[in-house]
């Protein structure tokens, strides 16, 4: 059986692409963790890890190795099965999100027609995982953390989906690759960041809450709940929770990059005006397109990751009732208004573009 035959097999393709996604997630987890430590150190007048490897590059490896070596403690009174499976359940949504993200023009694992809804759907499991971990630990702090987490994630999921609806309206599709293509047609100003600025801000805040990152890290708030739902975890199970947190962060940033910043769209060296085609003309074709697309995608993702880390080390934590107020009483109405605004503006452009009235430039961004 040749490789091409093997590739035609569904199971083989699923296996290979799944493994690639896993490798991508783990590699970026490593980089993100290192970035977080260095960036927080930079913000806080410290150096951060410096000893293991140049600029502490191997520190994450050392830490993970340490965590893997540790004894896997299962406290006596926990709900044993739930306690043991919780990290793996938490793992599911974080990785599933990557299935629909277009990494490049043709680099999508499963280009679902329902991309955005699929993302929202798999996120539900994060709630369940939190609950399993918190309830299974049989610890009051864990339980409080799990309760907070479940309430928070359920509330913000609504806001998150609502903030993205505007993008779906603009692109006329829920498919992520379609959304990227719709942005690609219009250059930088066609990025949905500009017409959907409200949506982008709401998305950013809501995804922070969904990720349980500071200032919304209520369910593991170390100064209140010790460590929230993973108080009882140690060793590699704790490492998996850490991994999930960061993979989630990468995933949400990747989606934000796709939805608002144009995903893999970006100029390649061949697009440089005069010398581009002559010098870098050979860098075209499907393979090179994918490579450049992937680079742009990574760049945008890391830009957002950088912002997320920056926010974490700047703001204090909000309280649970303030969080709920913010979500339900402010962000949700704002995102609903954004949907309304998008509809009006799109309609306005459609009407005025035919008549050729100069007023249509007001609606140009929403064209």
């Amino acid at each position, binding site marked *: 059986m040749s490789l091409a035959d093997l590739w035609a097999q*569904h199971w083989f393709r699923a296996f290979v692409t799944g493994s690639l996604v896993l490798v991508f997630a783990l590699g970026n987890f490593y980089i993100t963790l290192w970035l977080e430590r260095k960036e927080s150190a930079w913000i806080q007048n410290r150096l951060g890890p410096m000893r293991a490897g140049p600029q502490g590059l191997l520190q994450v490896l050392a830490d993970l190795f340490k965590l893997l070596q540790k004894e896997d403690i299962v406290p006596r009174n926990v709900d044993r099965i739930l306690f043991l499976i919780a990290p793996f359940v938490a793992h599911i949504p974080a990785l599933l999100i990557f299935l629909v993200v277009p990494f490049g023009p043709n680099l999508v694992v499963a280009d679902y*027609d*329902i991309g955005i809804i699929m993302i*929202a759907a798999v996120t*539900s499991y994060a709630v*369940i995982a939190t609950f399993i971990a918190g*309830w299974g630990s049989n610890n009051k702090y864990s339980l409080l953390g799990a309760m907070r987490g479940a309430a928070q994630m359920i509330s913000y999921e609504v806001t998150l989906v609502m903030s993205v609806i505007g993008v779906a309206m603009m692109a006329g599709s829920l498919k992520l690759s379609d959304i990227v293509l719709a942005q690609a047609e219009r250059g930088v100003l066609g990025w949905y960041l500009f017409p959907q600025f409200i949506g982008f801000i709401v998305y950013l805040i809501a995804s922070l809450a969904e990720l349980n990152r500071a200032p919304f890290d209520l369910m593991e708030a170390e100064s209140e709940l010790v460590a929230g739902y993973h108080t009882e975890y140690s060793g590699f199970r704790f490492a998996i929770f850490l991994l999930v947190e960061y993979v989630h962060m990468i995933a949400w940033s990747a989606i934000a990059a796709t939805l608002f910043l144009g995903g893999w769209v970006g100029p390649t060296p061949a697009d440089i005006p005069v010398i581009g085609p002559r010098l870098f003309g050979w860098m075209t074709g499907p393979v090179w397109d994918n490579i450049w697309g992937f680079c742009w995608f990574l760049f945008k993702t890391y830009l957002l990751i950088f912002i997320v880390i920056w926010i974490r080390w700047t703001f204090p934590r909000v309280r649970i009732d303030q969080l709920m107020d913010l979500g339900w009483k402010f962000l949700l109405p704002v995102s609903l208004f954004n949907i309304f605004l998008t509809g009006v503006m799109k309609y306005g452009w459609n009407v005025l573009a035919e008549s050729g009235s100069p007023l249509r430039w007001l609606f140009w961004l929403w064209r």
Partner: protein
Amino acid sequence: MTAQYLSFGVLALVTLWSAYKVVTARLITHAALWMALSFTSVSGIFLMLQQEFIAALQVLIYAGAITTMIIFAIMLSSIREIRVEPQQQTFGQRIRASGLLAVVVGLVFAAFMTYVYYVSEIPKEAVPDPGLLTVRQVGATLFTRFTVPFEVASILLLLAMIGAIILTAKETE
């Protein structure tokens, strides 16, 4: 091909086993989690039936919203400590009687379905190569042919929301 049978078989087994565990799990929290698993595998079957949209909604609404809601109710009312008491004889009898009932109902139901299938006018062969139903089509139908039911459904949801809030809000005296 057998892949379809295999995947269906696995999903069906998971569905049925977890549904069975919902009935028999001793802790109500476990029952809720088994229920989530059951919903998930049903959504897998929806995927097999090429209904991505419904599969995603199944996960979103059932495994996400309803399970969480039930879990919250369990937590808030501290029912989690109530276990199924082992009422020795009556319980066993009830299980047997009701298990029989379940089988009977299931069989009658399946038989009825088959009957409907045979007497009805629908084509007996599955449509050979169906075009995939897109979200766009569903949405278009929903907002044209089913506008009134759609609005009624949203009013229902609104009423449910208001009702739940009124019922659970603490009375401020």
